[in-house]
């Protein structure tokens, strides 16, 4: 525990140093929510229109903001004033909010502690490095400003309860998490199937009793969250706020998912067809804007609706659901949850690139289990962190984000390299160990030991080199060679290149779930 606190302490000093740096409009959003929940009665939380940043998270998060606003009021009442606090940029507000994120990360710490209690010490330290010093979480939470650390604490807690067999607790915590941020609901099918098959079994009567137990728990949680709003008759408004489907297929910056390829394919085909002579009208609607009546933003390929994306996510998820139905095993729950989030990320509607965190955080728990897992996680973590770079577009944060990614890569490399030969050496005899480390020559023991060492194949290495090339192009060569022309090109390149990596991760995870179960 002391060692865990040491890791947390180092991370906290870095987070403190980042307090004066760039923050996005999310800081103002959360400050406004502090004001709404503090100054207005509950019945007006989802109706207030004082600012454009309306409350669009589920009620538990609103209660959380209400809790924080008590302290904000003590420190500086103007933070929580509904009108005077608008765009309030004083130090008190910024410091309070940044420190509230740092303190709420204690919950992530707790989740990590519970999840890694049973691991041997070297693996446990490595998981701590991957989770507590995660660069993606640092960039999104402490620079861009969000409360993801807190939420991931709940997710890790839920996963660890399920892995230990405490299904009711796990389900309960997940239900609570859903009422904090509904984006986590992408993994709900996995939870549903797993709990149905693993918890609600043992004959008709017992199974039905357990089903009712879990049903009651979930209903109770949702009632605690949404009850007051049902009472006021506001449930429609709440749901409308939580699911703003007026948005487009992609965010303003395209998240590296499958739809990037679909859009590029559409543009490419339209371009070719135009060259050949067909008359393809350029579409009026845009991908990032809302659904403009009947107009489709696609020139050639069929239009994508929210329902299409929903169906595709379920389709992609189905192998995992099928496997979980056939053989629900506690040890595989982290992988299934991560796979669910991967499918949601790749095929979902209006996906934000921050959602790649949902993939890498649960997978960090299993990254230490085998060499293949480690290699996969190494690539995934770099891709997911790199895809977050466009979030920090100001020049002063450039060294910070590059250094964070580099440090993380180096740490991961050394930690994984330290972990894996040791494992194999412990398995084999002492003689084999000496042979493989000292004599770099004959013996099948040498090839066996080398195969088990942590190193990347040439495909992976060239992909990572490509990341460097894309970055150099976007930052240095593009402004130099092309100036102001094609300003969207660097972002598009990053998006497409990372999408390749994420698709690879999806296929790898799918293969693992199908084959290794």
């Amino acid at each position: 525990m002391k060692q865990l606190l040491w890791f947390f302490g180092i991370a906290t000093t870095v987070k403190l140093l980042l307090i004066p740096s760039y923050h996005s409009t999310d800081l103002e959003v959360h400050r406004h929510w502090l004001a709404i929940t503090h100054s207005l009665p509950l019945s007006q939380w989802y109706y207030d229109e004082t600012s454009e940043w309306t409350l669009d998270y589920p009620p538990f998060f609103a209660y959380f903001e209400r809790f924080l606003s008590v302290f904000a009021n003590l420190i500086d009442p103007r933070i929580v004033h509904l009108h005077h606090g608008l765009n309030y940029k004083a130090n008190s507000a910024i410091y309070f909010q940044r420190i509230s994120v740092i303190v709420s990360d204690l919950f992530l710490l707790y989740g990590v502690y519970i999840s890694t209690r049973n691991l041997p010490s070297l693996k446990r330290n490595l998981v701590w490095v991957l989770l507590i010093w995660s660069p993606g979480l640092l960039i999104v939470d402490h620079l861009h400003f969000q409360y993801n650390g807190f939420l991931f604490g709940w997710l890790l807690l839920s996963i660890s309860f399920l892995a230990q067999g405490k299904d009711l607790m796990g389900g309960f915590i997940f239900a609570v998490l859903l009422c904090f941020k509904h984006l986590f609901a992408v993994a709900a099918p996995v939870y549903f199937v797993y709990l149905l098959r693993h918890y609600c079994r043992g004959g008709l009567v017992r199974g039905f009793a357990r089903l009712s137990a879990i049903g009651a728990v979930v209903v109770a949680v949702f009632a605690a969250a949404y009850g007051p709003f049902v009472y006021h008759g506001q449930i429609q408004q709440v749901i409308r706020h939580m699911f703003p489907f007026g948005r487009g297929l992609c965010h303003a910056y395209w998240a590296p998912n499958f739809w990037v390829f679909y859009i590029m394919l559409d543009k490419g085909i339209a371009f070719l067809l135009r060259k050949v002579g067909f008359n393809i009208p350029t579409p009026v609607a845009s991908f990032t804007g809302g659904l403009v009546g009947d107009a489709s933003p696609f020139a050639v390929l069929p239009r994508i609706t929210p329902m299409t994306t929903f169906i595709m996510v379920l389709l992609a998820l189905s192998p995992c659901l099928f496997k979980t139905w056939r053989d629900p095993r506690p040890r595989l729950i982290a992988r299934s949850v991560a796979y669910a989030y991967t499918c949601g990320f790749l095929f979902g509607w209006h996906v934000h690139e921050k959602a790649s965190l949902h993939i890498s955080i649960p997978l960090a728990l299993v990254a230490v289990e085998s060499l293949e897992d480690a290699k996969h996680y190494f690539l995934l973590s770099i891709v997911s962190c790199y895809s977050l770079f466009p979030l920090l577009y100001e020049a002063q944060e450039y060294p910070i984000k590059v250094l964070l990614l580099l440090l993380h890569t180096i740490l991961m490399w050394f930690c994984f390299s330290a972990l894996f030969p040791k494992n194999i050496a412990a398995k084999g005899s002492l003689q084999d160990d000496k042979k493989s480390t000292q004599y770099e020559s004959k013996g099948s023991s040498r090839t066996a030991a080398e195969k088990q060492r942590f190193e990347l194949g040439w495909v992976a290495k060239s992909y990572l080199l490509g990341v460097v090339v894309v970055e150099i192009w976007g930052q240095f060569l593009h402004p130099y060679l092309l100036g102001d022309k094609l300003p969207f090109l660097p972002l598009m390149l990053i998006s497409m290149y990372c999408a390749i990596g994420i698709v690879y991760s999806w296929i790898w995870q799918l293969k693992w779930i199908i084959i290794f179960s």
Partner: protein
Amino acid sequence: MSAYFAPAFFSYLLGKCLKNKNPVLEVAKLGLIVVGTFAVVWWPYLHSKEAALAVLSRLAPFERGIYEDYVANFWCTSSVLVKWKKLYTTQSLRTFSLAATLLTCLPSMVQQVLAPSSKGFLYALLNSSFSFYLFSFQVHEKSVLLPLLPLTLLALEERQSLLWLTHFAMFSMFPLLHRDKLVLAYIALYALFILVYFAPGGPSGRCNGSKTRDHRQTTKRGMGFLSSIAFHPLVMGFLGLCSLILHVIYLTMRPPNKYPFLFEAVIMLICFSQFVLFTLYFNSKQWMLSKHLTSKDKQKKII
């Protein structure tokens, strides 16, 4: 600024030359190189005396006075009692500070000339930069980093001193950093330093090897009284608590109107006292080194 290290380099190189078979030739070679380098660098300004002097006067701005602000060095601290600026002219103060600096440098220089060694060289760097910091003209608070550098190189031998000196060096710069609105960075970096220093499983946790045993023996033999007082847990705890309280007072309370710089002065006094103790301690450590070395040499000769 690097003149802070010049005496150490000079004495070490001189010592090495003298140990050689042909001392005069070595000294001549060294002197030629140094003078040659200076000539090449200063070439554009050597065409007339005025040009060279103009550069010098910019490098060493003597009109600014012997001290500025509240640096934890001798002139500033003793100015609480003896008003140097009022009693003497800048000219005479210049001579005083030069004399004082050279005098305090002298023991470590002599030691290096007599018995040059790489470890001793690091100590000499430490001592010469410290004496410059304490007695030189127009010293800036930032210059405390110069003694801190060789001490960091000696981190494995002087673990506790590193922690202690870093604390007081940071503390002496605190008013400056507060003015620059860097308090957050100060706190975060200080916390980071402490965390890295006390890393679980790191050397400060474990290392009970032979090195530290030797170290403790030499300290006991030579230093006894001084080190037992300076590093005694109660004294350290008391001073640590005082500095913490002073940090808080400095940030929250306003000084009385009669003495607007009271808090800076108190900080400066505490830091100066520790720096003086450090100088004495490190000078004696350097001399202990040569005793240790000569005893080793004697053993070698016997064998």
